[in-house]
C-alpha cells in the first residue's frame, strides 16, 4: 500500500497536501467513512439488533436504536423451530462437495486444455466459454427436466446432492480462471518433468498444483459462496424439508413465522459467509479483480 502514496491519481498528491486541499481531503474522508459505515454496516446492525427486539418494540414509532429489553429467545426460536442445525449442515455438505467436485474436475480439465492440449481442445474450450453467454434463467427449465430424468441412464437426481454438485462443475469461469493461471507456468518446468519421466498426473500433482495454491483457494471460496447464496436451483432440486438449503428453508418458513424470528434465522444463515469473507477477504478481492478482467 505504500506504493499508492506516490502513485498519481485523479487529484495530484501535492494538491492534497496543501492547506485547503488537505482540509478538504480530511473532510471528504470523514464523510465517506461515516456514510459507508451507515449505508453498509447500518442495515446489518439493524438486522442483528432488530432480531433481539420483541414484536411490540419492533412495531413502535419511532424505532428504538438499541433493543430496550433484548430477547435472545428469538434466536433460540429460530434455531429450534426452523431446524437451522439441519439446514446449515445440508448447506455445508453441499458446499463442501461442490468444492471437491469443482477442484477435481475443473482443475483436471484446465490442466489438459493448458498443458496437454489434446485434439479438439480449443473447440471444447470454446464451447465451454460459450456457456458464459447463456443466462442461467434461460436454462432453468430444461436443466430441471434433465435432472429429474438424466439422459441415457434415466436417473432422477431430485433430493440428491449430485443435483447441486454436478451442474456446478460445468462452470466455464473456473475453467477460464484455472487455465489462465496454468498458462503462466513456464513450459520449461513441464519439459523438465517430462524428461525426468513424470507422467502427466504426476506433473499436475507435484509441480502444477503446488504452484497454483492461490488460484485453487479462489475457486474453492467462490464455490462455497455460490452454494451458500444460490436460491432457485436448490429450491427446485431439493424439494424435501430434509434436504433443503438454509436460504430455501428460511423462505419456506417465512410465511407462518414471526418476522423477528425470520430475521434472526437470516442473521444466523449469513454468519458463515461473512466469517469466510472476513478471513479470506484478500484472496476474494484479488480473485475478483485479477481473475476476471485483465485478459
Amino acid at each position, binding site marked *: 500500500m505504500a506504493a499508492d502514496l506516490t502513485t498519481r491519481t485523479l487529484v495530484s498528491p501535492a494538491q492534497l497536501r496543501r492547506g485547503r486541499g488537505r482540509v478538504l481531503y480530511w473532510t471528504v474522508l470523514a464523510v465517506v467513512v461515516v456514510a459507508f459505515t451507515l449505508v453498509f454496516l447500518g442495515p446489518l446492525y439493524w*438486522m442483528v439488533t432488530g432480531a433481539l427486539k420483541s414484536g411490540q418494540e419492533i412495531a413502535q414509532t419511532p424505532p428504538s436504536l438499541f433493543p430496550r429489553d433484548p430477547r435472545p429467545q428469538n434466536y433460540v426460536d429460530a434455531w429450534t423451530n426452523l431446524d437451522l442445525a439441519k439446514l446449515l449442515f445440508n448447506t455445508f455438505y453441499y458446499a463442501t462437495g461442490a468444492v471437491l467436485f469443482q477442484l477435481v474436475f475443473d482443475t483436471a480439465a484446465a490442466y489438459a486444455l493448458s498443458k496437454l492440449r489434446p485434439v479438439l*481442445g480449443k473447440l471444447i474450450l470454446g464451447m465451454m466459454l460459450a456457456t458464459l453467454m447463456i443466462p442461467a434463467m434461460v436454462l432453468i427449465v430444461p436443466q430441471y427436466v434433465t435432472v429429474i430424468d438424466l439422459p441415457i441412464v434415466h436417473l432422477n437426481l431430485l433430493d440428491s446432492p449430485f443435483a447441486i454438485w454436478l451442474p456446478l462443475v460445468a462452470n466455464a469461469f473456473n475453467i477460464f480462471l484455472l487455465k489462465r493461471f496454468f498458462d503462466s507456468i513456464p513450459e520449461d518446468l513441464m519439459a523438465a518433468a517430462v524428461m525426468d519421466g513424470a507422467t502427466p498426473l504426476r506433473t499436475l500433482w507435484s509441480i502444477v498444483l503446488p504452484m497454483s495454491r492461490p488460484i485453487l483457494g479462489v475457486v474453492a471460496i467462490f464455490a462455497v459462496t455460490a452454494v451458500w447464496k444460490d436460491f432457485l436451483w436448490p429450491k427446485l432440486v431439493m424439494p424435501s424439508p430434509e434436504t433443503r438449503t438454509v436460504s430455501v428453508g428460511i423462505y419456506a418458513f417465512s410465511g407462518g413465522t414471526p418476522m423477528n424470528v425470520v430475521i434472526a434465522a437470516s442473521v444466523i444463515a449469513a454468519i458463515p459467509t461473512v466469517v469466510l469473507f472476513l478471513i479470506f477477504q484478500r484472496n476474494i478481492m484479488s480473485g475478483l479483480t485479477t481473475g476476471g478482467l485483465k485478459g
Partner: protein
Amino acid sequence: MALTTAPGATHRPGRPAPPPRQTAARRAGLGRKVRDNLTGHTFLIGAVACFAVFSWYPMVRGVVMSFQRTRRGETTWVGWDNYTRIIADPSFWTAWKNTFVFTGLALVLGYAVPFFVAILLNELRHAKGYLRVLVYLPVMLPPASALFLFKFYAYDPSEAGLFNAVLTALGLPTSEWMQSPTMTMPAMVLASTWMNMGGAVLIYLAALQNIPGELYEAAEIDGAGVWRRIVHVTIPQTRLILALLAMLQIVATMQLFIEPLILANGAGTQDSATSVAYLIYQHGFFQNDLNGAAALGVIMLVVLAGFSAVYVRLTARQD
C-alpha cells in the same frame, strides 16, 4: 490440432531432430501421439461430461421443448403453440415492461454509482481496506437473508420501518414501499444495488489503478479540472471495463427473480413486480406448463442475444 503442430515441436533447438527414413520410429511417434491425446481427453472427461449433460444438452433441449407439448407422458410437436399461448398470457407484456424498467433503473443507479464510488475510493489514502470490506460485505450475504431484512425492516410501510423512520427524521414524506405500485420497482432496484454493487466497485478500482498517472498530469497541465479529467482521462481509459460490466449487468438484471419473489411475494401489488424470470418460474413449476416456460426462456435468450449483438457492434466501432 496437436497432430499437425507436433512435428514442428520436435525441431525445437535443444532437441535432436528425428532421424529421417525410419518408419518404425515414426510409427512409435504416432502411437505416442495417440496415447498423449488419450491422456489429455481422460483429464477432460469429467468436466466435459458435466458440461454436456447440464449445459450443452439443456440448451438444445430448451429449444426443442418450446415446440413440444407433454400431456400425461405423451409428447407431441405443436409448432408455435407454446409461443402464442405464452404471449397471450395477460402478464406477459407486464412482465417485460417491469423487467425493462428494472434493468433501466438499475443501469442508472446500479451502474453509475459503483463507478463514482470507485473513483472516490481510489482518491482516498486512508481506511482503504476498511472501505473495500464494507462495500463488498453485502455481496457475501445470502440474497434471501438480505432481502428479508429489506422486506421486514427497511420497507415496513408504517413509520416503524427503518427507511420511513429516517425519512420522518429528515422531515420528508414517508412511502408505502412495496405496497405502492409506483415505488415497487425503485425499492427493488435499491435493494438489489445495495446487495450487488461491491463486485463492480472492486473491479473498477482495479481498472483505475492501471491508468498511468502521467495522463492525469498532462491533463492538469493543460488546465483540465477534476470533472474534465474524469471525462477525458478516466472514462476513456476504463472504456472496455465499463462496456463489459454494462453488458454483464444487463444480462444479470434481466434475470430479476429473487427480489420480486421475496420482497413482493412474486407478483407484487397490481402485478407491479412480476418479472419475466418470475413468469418462467410460475409457468414451469406452478401452472404445470414446462413447455410454455421453455418457450419464454427462448424468447428471453433471443432478447439478450439482441442486446449482446448491439453491444458487440458498439464496442467494435469504438476501437
